[in-house]
């Protein structure tokens, strides 16, 4: 095992200096610059390895928090610390050459970006020697964490999903359907998008001008990704094959954009002009204030211990445009990756392996928190409660339509969503048409991508 701990090199010192400089000039921003390079030689370890030292995990408290850190420390004989996930903090830590050892990420959208910048560690050597993760047990969804420099799904493995879902699937609250006297949708056939919008309008409850129940939230993980998925359902694609440009003005993409604008103008769910104060669907749905939510199978984990909602929550297939091409993509494949500049990689791998394939992975699978990324754990998916049994069946049927969409290495999803967030209000208010919105977003995103490509030259 060869693990070197780089000292304060000239380059790193400069990088830290940069971080302080920017925070001085900007008042609030800590930045810097350092290539994420390392001389570490990866050596795989299994659970209970001899890896020692401190491992810092950057994740969300509900996923890998202090409780998990304590369990990891006890099981692996390491000191595991956690840092709450925050993109700004992560960027600053990476830039200053002092990253966490393990980081939460969305494989679907993060992998090309991280791999192209040589920020993420190639984990193939670790997987090759893993005692808990065997090659033939790996679910294909984990290919979203692979990138060969040209396309996603091939090349080295830079991370691994902790669980996944087909994120365009829907959950509905049957009590709100009953209250609005609307028939429950079929769990066997996907809803056409037009019908979904109609349902959303009928299910929205208002008190004067105030919306007390959102009829529908189609936003999912990001508006851009949602539009990409809808465009794919309409038979087109937003991102070009070389991943260097987008086109939202194609007829298929425009169909998606027009539908989304119709939804937003109808005022039946959260948009950039009327954000959900809870920030995500969970509390709103559980409070009986959202009739249909675009959240994949993992959302069911919420109801395992929520007897009231367990009786009301039902999973539905991903809606379609009815072009004959039924798709049901995974937008996230959320999991863990290891920064290349990490200082204790063997120990970091031990923690990753434990979390992704050890006891926590089994507990997640049994709790209904997403589909396990290891085939052997999928048999643990819960079917005890009626809603779990129903959701399991809907999910298994949906798996036939699983699809993935490549993301670009030339920009971050946040940057693209930022552009959409700036342009959407005009389009929702009607000061720009769907076509104008599509053109404006296409132009600005392509500028971003061109700039990103230039910087990677």
């Amino acid at each position, binding site marked *: 095992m060869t693990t070197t701990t780089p000292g304060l090199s000239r380059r790193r010192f400069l990088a830290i*200096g940069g971080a302080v400089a920017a925070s001085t000039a*900007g008042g609030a*921003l800590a*930045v810097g610059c350092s290539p994420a390079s390392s001389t570490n030689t990866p050596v795989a370890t299994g659970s209970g390895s001899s890896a020692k030292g401190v491992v810092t995990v950057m994740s969300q408290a509900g996923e890998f928090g202090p409780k998990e850190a304590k369990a990891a420390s006890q099981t692996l004989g390491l000191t595991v610390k956690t840092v709450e996930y925050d*993109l700004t903090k992560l*960027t600053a830590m990476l830039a200053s050459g002092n990253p966490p050892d393990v980081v939460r990420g969305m494989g679907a959208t993060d992998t090309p970006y991280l791999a192209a*910048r040589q920020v993420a560690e190639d984990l193939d050597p670790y997987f090759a020697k893993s005692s808990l993760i065997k090659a033939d047990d790996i679910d294909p969804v984990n290919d979203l964490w692979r990138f060969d420099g040209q396309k996603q799904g091939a090349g080295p493995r830079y991370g691994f999903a902790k669980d996944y879902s087909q994120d365009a699937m829907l959950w509905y609250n049957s009590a709100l359907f009953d209250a609005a006297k609307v028939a429950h949708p079929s769990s066997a056939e996907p809803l056409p998008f037009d019908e979904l919008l109609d349902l959303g309008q009928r299910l929205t409850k208002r008190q004067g001008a105030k919306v007390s129940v959102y009829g529908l939230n189609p936003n999912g993980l990001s508006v851009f990704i949602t539009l990409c998925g809808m465009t794919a359902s309409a038979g087109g694609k937003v991102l070009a094959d070389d991943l260097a440009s987008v086109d939202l003005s194609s007829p298929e993409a425009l169909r998606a954009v027009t539908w989304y604008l119709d939804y937003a103008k109808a005022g039946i769910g959260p948009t950039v002009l*009327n954000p959900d104060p809870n920030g995500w669907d969970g509390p709103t749905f559980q409070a009986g204030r959202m009739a249909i939510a675009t959240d994949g199978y993992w959302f069911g984990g919420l109801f395992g211990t929520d007897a009231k909602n367990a009786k009301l929550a039902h999973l539905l297939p991903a809606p379609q445009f009815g072009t004959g091409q039924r798709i049901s993509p995974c937008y996230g494949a959320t999991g863990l990756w290891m920064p290349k500049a990490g200082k204790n990689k063997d120990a970091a791998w031990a923690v990753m392996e434990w979390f992704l394939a050890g006891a926590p992975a089994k507990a997640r699978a049994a709790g209904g928190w997403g589909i396990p990324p290891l085939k052997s754990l999928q048999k643990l998916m819960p079917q005890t409660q009626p809603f779990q049994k129903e959701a399991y069946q809907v999910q298994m049927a949906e798996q036939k339509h699983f699809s993935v969409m490549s993301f670009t290495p030339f920009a971050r999803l946040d940057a693209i969503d930022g552009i959409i967030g700036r342009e959407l209000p005009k389009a929702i208010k009607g000061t720009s048409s769907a076509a104008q919105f599509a053109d404006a977003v296409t132009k600005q995103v392509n500028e971003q991508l061109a700039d990103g490509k230039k910087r990677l030259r």
Partner: protein
Amino acid sequence: MTSTPTDVRRSPAPTLVTSRERRKKKPPSLKRARTFYLFVAPWVLGFVGLTVFPLGYAFWLSLTDSDGLSPRTHFVGFDNYLEVFRDPLTLSSLGRTGLFALITVPLSILAGLLLAVMLNQPIRGRGLLRGLIYLPAVVPPVGAALTFRLIFDRDAGAANGILSGLGSNPITWLVDPNVRYVLYALVLWGCGGSMIISLAGLQDIPKELQEAALVDGASYWQSFTRITVPLLSPVILFQVITGIIGSLQSFAPLLLSSGTLSGAGTVPQGNYLYMIHVFAQYFSAARFGYASAMLWLLFGVILLVTLVILKVSARTVFYTVEPEGRR
């Protein structure tokens, strides 16, 4: 008989001093200087290490296309600075920031001054009132911003709760175009800080001057405008300069009151000020070079504005003690 050494009466010390002795006997001013430099050394070292050097490094960054992560960083000269003047979003956010400063700084100072004048009167419970009004100024900006976000939420906020109680429809406070009013309210909510500074200035004004004016027949308004305000002008100047610098650097309240921590792209256009755009360039677009150039430009703008204000103020600000120390 020879005298013992102790008996020898030594002649007075020679006036010639060896170079070694000269080194030992340093002039008192040099000693004081050495002590001074010794005491300020920690600050100087910190200033050079944590400010001058990093600023220089940030300047170097601004001449590159660094994304903070990639090992490939290219020198691009002054391209980033030129782009600042071509980027419509940068220019619009700078303009919006200037307007924000123009509106909030005078309002905040006026509100603070008004409160200070009121609470400088011998009224009952003024200590408590001063404390209550100053309290928001000590609330951390993050807490204040999040509180305002809750108050002005469309469906669950207290503001719309009151409005609906009065029979009015809910207002979407946290999106355009109303979001800027929430921001102005947030800034004015913290005017207790300005009040405390003005109050200190008011209490420094000799009462005799105002009493003499009143005896001479001046009205309260005349006494206020001809005596109080001129004597308070250095305090107002201080507030104008620090207020403008603070406004131009506004960041956290904007992000937290109307956007989300996940990204600057969620901040509505009305609150999309310069520092939000800098944040977006750093952390969403990962354009470290460009964002560094934007910060240097902001530094230039702040320096220029401050110099202009100081120049203009030379004619309007009244000092009882000249800035150079002359009375």
